[in-house]
C-alpha cells in the first residue's frame, strides 16, 4: 500500500514545485552589461567574444544577440557579416511577430520572458534601416529593397494596431524619418525619380521637423538636380551616442492596489489569496546617450559642417514605451490574477483553509510572484541618434577628416582621416559610430 499524501505534504510538494518553476535567472540587461561596456569603450573584439559566449549559451539564433552581433560587425568594418546577422535577426523577429497562444499561456504562469522576443516596434524598423546601411557600404544592390521594407514595416505596425472603434495606441508613434530619408537619397541618385525623392523628403520634414537640412533637400529634388556636372555626393551616416536599454522598475502604486484588493477578496472568499508582497516589475526604457553629440566633417582645410539628427532612437523608444505601457501593465496584473487564482483553486481543490498547508501555499504563491522578472530584452547596441550629412564634392579621391564632438562642440577624440572616392553623378557612403571615447571601430566608406 502506498503511503497517503496528506494536505500538509501536498501543500509542501506543490509549493516546492512552484518555487522550482520560478526562474531566478539574471535579467538580460544585467547579463549584457559587460558587452555594452566593452562596445562603448571601443573594445569590439571583447564585445564580439562576450556575445559569442552568450550565443553559445542561449542559442546562435537568439534574435536579440543577433542584433547586437550585427552592430559589432558593422562597427568593426565587416558590413557583409553585419548584413548576414541582421538579416537573420529580421527573419527571426518576423517569424515570432505573431503572438503564440502557448507562449502567452506559459507567460501567465511565469513572466514575459517566456514569450519569444519579437522586438520593439522601433527595433523592427531599425533592423531594416541598418540592413540598408550595411548593404550600401558594399554594392548597394539591395539597399532599395531594404528602404522599401522600412517604409512597409512602419505602415504595417501602425495599421495592425488599429482598434475596431477607430482608436490606435500606436498612432502617437514618432516615425523613423531616417527611412524616407534613405529612400529619398536612393531615388534621387537615379537622376530619374525626383518625384519619389520629393515625396520622401516631404515625409522627412513632417516626421522630423527639427531636421534642418530637410527643406534644402526638398527644394533640390523639386527644382534642382542631384549634383553639378563633374561632381558626386558623399552621404555621411553617423551613429551617435549610446542607445536606450531597458531596466527593471517596480510598479509600487499598482502593487499596493493589488495588495489591498487581494486582502479584501481574502476576507470575502473565506480562503486567503497569496498577498502581493512582491511588487509588480515592468521594463522601463532608459535613455543614457552619453556625451557624443555630433560628428564634424572637414575636407582639407574646409569645415564642411556637422552631422544632423534625422532619428532619435531613444526618444522613439520612450514614446513607444508610453504608448504600450497600459498593455504591458495589464498583462502583468492579469498574470498576478492568474497566479493568485491558481493558488486559490489549489486550496479549494485540496480543501485547505488555514494552518500550515494554507500558509505553505501562500508562501509558494508569494515566491511564485516574486520570481517574475521584467522582460528587459532589447537591442542594446543601437545608437542614441542617427545623424546624416550630405556633401557635394568634385569627382575624384578626397580625404574627409571626421571628429566626434560633445554638446558644447568640444572634440571627444582625435580626428579620423577617411579617404572616399567620389564618382561623377553618383553617391558614396560613409559610416561612423561616435561615442564618449571617440569613434567606435573605424569609419568605413563604400567602395573601399
Amino acid at each position, binding site marked *: 500500500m502506498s503511503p497517503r499524501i496528506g494536505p500538509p505534504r*501536498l501543500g509542501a510538494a506543490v509549493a516546492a514545485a512552484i518555487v522550482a518553476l520560478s526562474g531566478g535567472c539574471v535579467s538580460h540587461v544585467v547579463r549584457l552589461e559587460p558587452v555594452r561596456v566593452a562596445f562603448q569603450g571601443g573594445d569590439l573584439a571583447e564585445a564580439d567574444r562576450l556575445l559569442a559566449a552568450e550565443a553559445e549559451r542561449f542559442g546562435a539564433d537568439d534574435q536579440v544577440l543577433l542584433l547586437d552581433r550585427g552592430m559589432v560587425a558593422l562597427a568593426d568594418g565587416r558590413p557583409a557579416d553585419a548584413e548576414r546577422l541582421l538579416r537573420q535577426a529580421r527573419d527571426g523577429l518576423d517569424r515570432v511577430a505573431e503572438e503564440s497562444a502557448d507562449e502567452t*499561456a506559459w507567460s501567465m504562469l511565469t513572466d514575459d520572458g517566456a514569450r519569444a522576443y519579437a522586438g520593439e516596434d522601433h527595433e523592427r524598423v531599425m533592423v531594416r534601416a541598418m540592413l540598408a546601411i550595411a548593404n550600401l557600404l558594399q554594392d548597394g544592390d539591395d539597399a532599395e529593397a531594404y528602404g522599401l521594407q522600412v517604409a512597409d514595416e512602419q505602415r504595417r505596425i501602425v495599421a495592425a494596431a488599429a482598434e475596431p472603434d477607430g482608436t490606435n495606441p500606436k498612432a502617437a508613434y514618432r516615425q523613423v524619418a531616417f527611412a524616407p530619408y534613405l529612400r529619398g537619397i536612393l531615388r534621387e541618385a537615379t*537622376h530619374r525619380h525626383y518625384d519619389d525623392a520629393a515625396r520622401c523628403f516631404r515625409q522627412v520634414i513632417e516626421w522630423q521637423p527639427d531636421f534642418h537640412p530637410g527643406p534644402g533637400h526638398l527644394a533640390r529634388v523639386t527644382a534642382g538636380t542631384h549634383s553639378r*556636372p563633374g561632381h558626386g555626393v558623399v552621404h555621411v551616416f553617423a551613429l551617435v551616442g549610446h542607445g536606450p536599454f531597458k531596466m527593471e522598475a517596480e510598479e509600487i502604486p499598482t502593487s499596493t492596489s493589488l495588495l489591498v484588493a487581494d486582502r479584501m477578496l481574502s476576507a470575502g472568499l473565506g480562503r486567503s489569496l497569496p498577498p502581493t508582497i512582491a511588487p509588480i516589475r515592468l521594463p522601463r526604457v532608459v535613455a543614457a546617450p552619453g556625451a557624443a553629440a555630433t560628428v564634424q566633417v572637414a575636407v582639407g582645410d574646409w569645415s564642411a559642417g556637422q552631422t544632423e539628427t534625422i532619428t532619435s532612437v531613444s526618444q522613439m523608444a520612450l514614446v513607444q514605451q508610453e504608448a504600450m505601457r497600459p498593455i504591458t501593465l495589464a498583462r502583468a496584473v492579469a498574470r498576478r490574477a492568474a497566479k493568485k487564482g491558481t493558488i486559490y483553486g489549489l486550496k479549494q*481543490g*485540496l*480543501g485547505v483553509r488555514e494552518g500550515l498547508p494554507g500558509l505553505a501555499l501562500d508562501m509558494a504563491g508569494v515566491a511564485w510572484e516574486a520570481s517574475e522578472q521584467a522582460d528587459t530584452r532589447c537591442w542594446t547596441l543601437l545608437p542614441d541618434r542617427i545623424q546624416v550629412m550630405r556633401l557635394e564634392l568634385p569627382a575624384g579621391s578626397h580625404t574627409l577628416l571626421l571628429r566626434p564632438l560633445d554638446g558644447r562642440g568640444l572634440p571627444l577624440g582625435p580626428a579620423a582621416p577617411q579617404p572616399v572616392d567620389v564618382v561623377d553623378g553618383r553617391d558614396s557612403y560613409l559610416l561612423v559610430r561616435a561615442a564618449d571615447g571617440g569613434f567606435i571601430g573605424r569609419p568605413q566608406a563604400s567602395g573601399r
Partner: protein
Amino acid sequence: MSRVDRRQFLRRALTVVPVAVGAASGCRTTQFARVMLPGEAGMVGSHQAGQETFTPLVNDAVAKLLARHVDSGIRQVTYEEGTEPLPPPARRVCFVGVENKSAEEIGDFKEQIYEAIDARILESSVFQSVNRRFVDAGLRDTRLRPDQLLVPEHMRTFAAHLEQQGQPIDYLLYATITSGTTQQNRDYQRDYVLTLELVEVGTGTYDKQSAELSKGYHHTRLGRWRAAHAQPQ
C-alpha cells in the same frame, strides 16, 4: 473534501493543465507561399492599388497608344518594279520614366510599371524603345531632370547626347499616375489614371492616351456588398 477526492482533483489538474497548454501550442502561424497559375485571379489590394489596378491600366493605355500610331504609321514608300517595298523604320522612343502623382506611395510597383510599358512598346512593331541604361546614363551625364526635357533646348541637348551614344530618338515617352479620391463617410472611391504622353523630339508635338480604373475601399463587408449591388445612377 476526502483524501481520495483531493488526489483525484490533483490528478485531473495535473492532466488538464498540460493538455490545455499543449492544445494551444503551435498557434503561431507559419507563412506559406504558392505559385499562382496563369490566368488565376490575383489578390486585390485592400488599402491601396496593386496589380489589379496597374496591370489593366498599363494594358489599356499602351494598347490605345499603339493603336493610334499603327494607324498613323502608314508612311508612303517608293516602289520600284522588281523590288520588295521596305517596311517603314520603327520610330525610336526614349521612355523617360513613370511619375507618381497619386495619393499613394506605389513602392516597388513603379519599376514594374516601367518595365511592363517598356516591354509592350518593344514588342510592338510600331516603336522601338531605347535601352533604359542609355536613358539613365544620359540623364546622369547631362544632369537634366526628366521634367526639364520638354524645354526645347534641353530636349535637343538630351537627344544629341543619346545620338552620340548611337541611340538616336524620335520621341520621348512619359507615364504619369494620378488619382482622385471621393470620400463617403468611412468608405472611399479612388479613381486611378495612367497617362502616356508621347512627345515628338523634332517638333515638340505630342500625343496623349489615358486609361482609367476606379476602386472602392470599404470599411466593412456590408459596405462592399452595398456598393457592389447599388443601382446605377
